[in-house]
Every structure is written in structure tokens, then in C-alpha cells.
């Protein structure tokens, strides 16, 4: 188990190195940082001097190793706009984004399992056909359009739910602002979470349905019937456990993808998270912030995937983590 863990951590480090390299290489191609720093009134000589001072004339490799060294100490550069360490800026926005992803994940997990199982068990009912039909629509419509439609219906027409911002947040654990402590917070996070879930939820319903239907055809399900086991136990113990194994693997990747999707959702709902911040950083050509964002999101991706792989090993008895380390 430990050997496997170490192996996975090394893999994760390798992936992070690649991400940092890509992120850093982008930095060089986003234009002249001097223009952002000093404006137009400074003479060319002073600019050259500044370039030397900042190390911008060093070789790529030298600059990259310096960047890596700083990054390891938690320094991902300083945001031009905020005049603060980029990582601090991102970490301040992180809770808002993670809560949004959490909200969407809760919706997805809570709804996809019952809907997927139902449509697999009773594929021919009107309700099943309706669910499958809606799921196709959900996958097809882009997140920002779904978001705008929901604002139009629930905020503008009916006026039930707020259309932007986080509302009343409560600070917990020192720095973390949470939406889940007040009713107003819940009301504010509902629409953005739904919008974020709108692509993944149908995907998961369809995935669970397809896996479940295949599992229901398997010999061990037939055998369970031949043993006189009740249908409820066959569906939710024999079949669902086997269904969820591949779903967990896909699910882990999708949680990472959702962090990226927050850019659209946060922009539409003016949600003060990292995605919204990233878009603003792009508009301001705030290069260090852009690079820092890429690296943080990459880190979240790698982290969730590693955790999911470990969970998979714990859930699936045929995966022997102890042996896989060897």
C-alpha cells in the first residue's frame, strides 16, 4: 500500500513538472512584461536595465529553474494588478470555487445514481424516456447558455432566486468563507451549482445507465436471481457496486474538469471565485496570475486523480494496492 502510494506521488510530481513547464512557457509568449510594469514613458535603456535586473535576459532553462525553485517555496510570482503574491490572490478566491464545485458534485452524485439506476432497470417507461431525452438536451447546451436561461426563468421571470454573487457568507476556520451556513448563501449557490452540473449530470446518468444495463446482463446477476435474492438487493448490492467501479474512475477526472468549467459559470453568475478571477487576469494580461492559476488548477487535477485512484483500489477487491507497488 505504502509502496503504491509513493509510486503514485512520484507520478503526480512528474505530471506537475510538465504542467509547470507548459505554464511557464506560456508566460514568455503573452507579451512583454515590461509594458505592463512600467507603461510607455520609460526609455529603452532603462527598460534594458530593468530586464537584466529581473533576469528576463537569462536563458530559458535558467529562468525556468528559478521559477521552479520559487514555486517550491510557494512563490508563484506577484500579480501585476493586485501587487500581491499570485498564490495569495488565488487562495483567497479558492473557497468560492471549491464550494461551487462541491455544490455541483452533490447535485450530480445525489441525482445521477437514482436516475441512472432507474433508467437502467425500467428502460421502457415514459419517465425513463423523458429522463434520457432531457439528458441529451443537457449535454448539448453549453453551460453559459444553460446558466443564462436559468437566470431568465428563476431570477427574472419568477424572481425566486438571486442571479449573481455569493450573498451572505460566513467565515469559518479563519479564512474560509462558506455559503452553506445561511439560507441566503444556499439560495445564491443553488443556480450556479445547477448550471455547473448541467453537463456532467446527464453524462453521469447516461454512464451509470449504460454500465448498469451491462451489469444486469451478467452471469452473476442471473445467478443471484437463481438463488432467490430479492430484486432490491440484486440492484443495489450486486449490480450497483459493480456499476460504480468504472464510474468512480471517470468521475475523478470530471471533478477536475469541473474546476475548469467554473470559468464560464462564475462569469455568468459574477461568482467571486478563481474562474472569474482568471478571466479578469486574462483581460488585464496579468501574466503571473494566469500562470499561477494554471498551476493551481493542474495541481487540483492531479490531486483529485490520485485520490480517486486510491479510493478505487479500496473499493475494488481485485485491485491489490500492496502488490501494485512492487
Amino acid at each position: 500500500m505504502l509502496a503504491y502510494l509513493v509510486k503514485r506521488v512520484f507520478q503526480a510530481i512528474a505530471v506537475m513538472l510538465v504542467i509547470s513547464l507548459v505554464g511557464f512557457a506560456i508566460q514568455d509568449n503573452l507579451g512583454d512584461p515590461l509594458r505592463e510594469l512600467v507603461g510607455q514613458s520609460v526609455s529603452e535603456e532603462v527598460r534594458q536595465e530593468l530586464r537584466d535586473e529581473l533576469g528576463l535576459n537569462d536563458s530559458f532553462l535558467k529562468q525556468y529553474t528559478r521559477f521552479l525553485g520559487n514555486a517550491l517555496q510557494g512563490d508563484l510570482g506577484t500579480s501585476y494588478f493586485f501587487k500581491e503574491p499570485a498564490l495569495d490572490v488565488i487562495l483567497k478566491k479558492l473557497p468560492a470555487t471549491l464550494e461551487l464545485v462541491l455544490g455541483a458534485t452533490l447535485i450530480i452524485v445525489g441525482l445521477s445514481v437514482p436516475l441512472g439506476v432507474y433508467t437502467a432497470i425500467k428502460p421502457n417507461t415514459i419517465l425513463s424516456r423523458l429522463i434520457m431525452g432531457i439528458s441529451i438536451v443537457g449535454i448539448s447546451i453549453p453551460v453559459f447558455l444553460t446558466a443564462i436561461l436559468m437566470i431568465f426563468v428563476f431570477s427574472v421571470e419568477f424572481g425566486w432566486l438571486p442571479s449573481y454573487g455569493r450573498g451572505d457568507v460566513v467565515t469559518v476556520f479563519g479564512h474560509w468563507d462558506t455559503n452553506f451556513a445561511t439560507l441566503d448563501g444556499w439560495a445564491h449557490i443553488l443556480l450556479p451549482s445547477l448550471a455547473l452540473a448541467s453537463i456532467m449530470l446527464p453524462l453521469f446518468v447516461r454512464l451509470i445507465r449504460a454500465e448498469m444495463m451491462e451489469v444486469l446482463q451478467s452471469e452473476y446477476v442471473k445467478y443471484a436471481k437463481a438463488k432467490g435474492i430479492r430484486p432490491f438487493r440484486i440492484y443495489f448490492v450486486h449490480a450497483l457496486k459493480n456499476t460504480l467501479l468504472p464510474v468512480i474512475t471517470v468521475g475523478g477526472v470530471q471533478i477536475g474538469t469541473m474546476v475548469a468549467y467554473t470559468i464560464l459559470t462564475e462569469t455568468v453568475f459574477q461568482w467571486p471565485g478563481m474562474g472569474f478571477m482568471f478571466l479578469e487576469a486574462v483581460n488585464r494580461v496579468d501574466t503571473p496570475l494566469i500562470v499561477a492559476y494554471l498551476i493551481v488548477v493542474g495541481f487540483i487535477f492531479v490531486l483529485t486523480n490520485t485520490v480517486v485512484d486510491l479510493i478505487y483500489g479500496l473499493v475494488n477487491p481485485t485491485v491489490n494496492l500492496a502488490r501494485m507497488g512492487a
Partner: protein
Amino acid sequence: MSLLSVRDLTVKFAMRDNTVTALDNISFDLAKGERLGIVGESGAGKSITGFALMNLLSRPGFIDNGKILFEGEDIANMSDAQMRGIRGNRMAMIFQDPMVTLNPVLTIGQQMVETLMAHRKLSKAEAEQIAVVKLREVYIPSPEERLAQYPHELSGGMRQRIIIAMALLLDPELIIADEPTTALDVTIQADIMELLLELCQSNKVGLILITHDLGVVSQMTERTLVMYAGKIIEAGRTREIINDPQHPYTQGLINALPQQTKPGMRLKQIPGNMPSLTAIPAGCPFSPRCEYVRDHCRTTRPEPVQYAHVEVACHEVNRLHRENSEEQSA
């Protein structure tokens, strides 16, 4: 009264715009503790017979007509809940491939205990005790430890032993074994069959053994049904059928056995293939492959008649017998 009495059982499969008949008016009886073999080529309807007896046909298959009387009760018309009380309890089934029969994410113990608890009011500890006793009966070493193991930790032969133990958990009156050794190593096949025979005899359990292996049938069973294209074409005591088959198809099957041919010679195979269920010939289904075929064989379906010691569905059985005995005396 016989344990099982099947009358005019017809199973059909619903296709897009018509139905095909997979089992055509099957009738047979099984006495308490009797062992019956069902033989035939792939696609003859052997496995479908097994699943129909458990009322476990999955769609698009369905029982179209007929009765399956199990101790006088008609299984064919039972509700799901009633049927659940019989499956695994009074009637157990052993599947073909032990590698895919057990659920990969549940332990052996969980799968045995759930079967017991589905039919009897027992605590988990009591159920585990019964499971250990049954595992010991099928010669599983250190059965207590097996309960905590997952199927993938055990070999195919071991898994099939466990499945046999599961079949015996609730002391059923009938076990239906659908080619229980086909998926296993040849060296283990004989062990498993011997074990099954021993347990059926000592527990006085009825057995329906579905197989294509005539050798196994002759060792294991007292009576045999030979199936072809969804029909029973010959039925009788196993010894009579093996030693003196009446139907040309059964004769062909026995002549095709390697033991019937001198080493180095070509095996005598039956020409052609079994017809697909969508294109069963009118008249005798075996007529296109039969070397004794006459015109009326192609138009009129033969009804089973008593001949010698067996029941056989063949128009030409008299002539055939005459020719064979002439051949032998010549």
C-alpha cells in the same frame, strides 16, 4: 408422485415482428432423487430448458404454453415472489462458468450468507456456520478463511466447488446443472462430476444435468433426454440410449465419439449443422442431415413412440432397426 413433471412446455422468443420457437412441446418427468441428463448440440435448447424450469428466462424469451409441475405446483404460472421462494431454496442451479458466476465485489461468505438469509430466518453467525459445514462437504480446505475471500482469489475448480456448496445450502430437492464442467480444466472436470454425483446420491437430491458430453451422461445419470432443434427426439434409460440408440441423430452422436473410431482414422461426424431456430424444416427437424431420410420425413413431423426400451421420434425407426440388425447378422 414425481418431483418434477413437465407437460407440453413451449418456449418462444419474441423477435421484431414474429416469434421463434425455442422449445417445442417438451414433456418429461423426474422422480425424487432421480438423475436426468439432457444432451444435444449447442443451440438444441438444453440451457433454455434449464432456465425455463427455474422460470428465469430473460427477455425476449417467454414460456408460451405448457405446465411445469414441481411437487404438484405449476411453476410456469407462479408470481415472481412465489418463484423467489423456490429458487435457490427447493431448486438450485449450477451455472456453466464459475469464473463469471460469482459476484466479483462480494466475498464468498457474503454470497453464501445472503442466500441462506433470503430463505430462512437466521442470524449472520448461524448462516456462516451452515456455510462452513457445506464448504467442508465439498472438500474446500480451511473453509472459515474462504468466507472472507473474494472470488478472484480462488481457482476455477475451487469456485465451482463453492457454487456446488451454495446449491446445497438449503438442501434443495432438485439441482439443475448447466454444463458445470465445460469451462474447467480437463483434470478437474472428473473431480467435480464425481463430487456432484456423490453429493446428489448422499443427499437424495434430484439432478438435471445439461451437457453435450455423452460420456459424462453415462456416468452420472439414470435417464437421458436427447434434444434436437428444441425437441426431445429420444428419451429413455441412459444405459439403453448409450448402448442401443434408436434415433439416427443419437446414433450419429455416439458414432462421433473418438472411442468409436480406430486411432488415426477420421472421426465420423454428422454432416451439416443444426438448423437455426428461425428456419426449422417442416416435418422431422433432422431430415436434412439424416442418411435414412424418406419423403414423408420432410413433410410430416414424427411423434414420439415407444420403441425397444426408449421413446423415439422417428418415422423410420422400424426400418432402421431392421437394417441395422441385418447388417450385424451379415
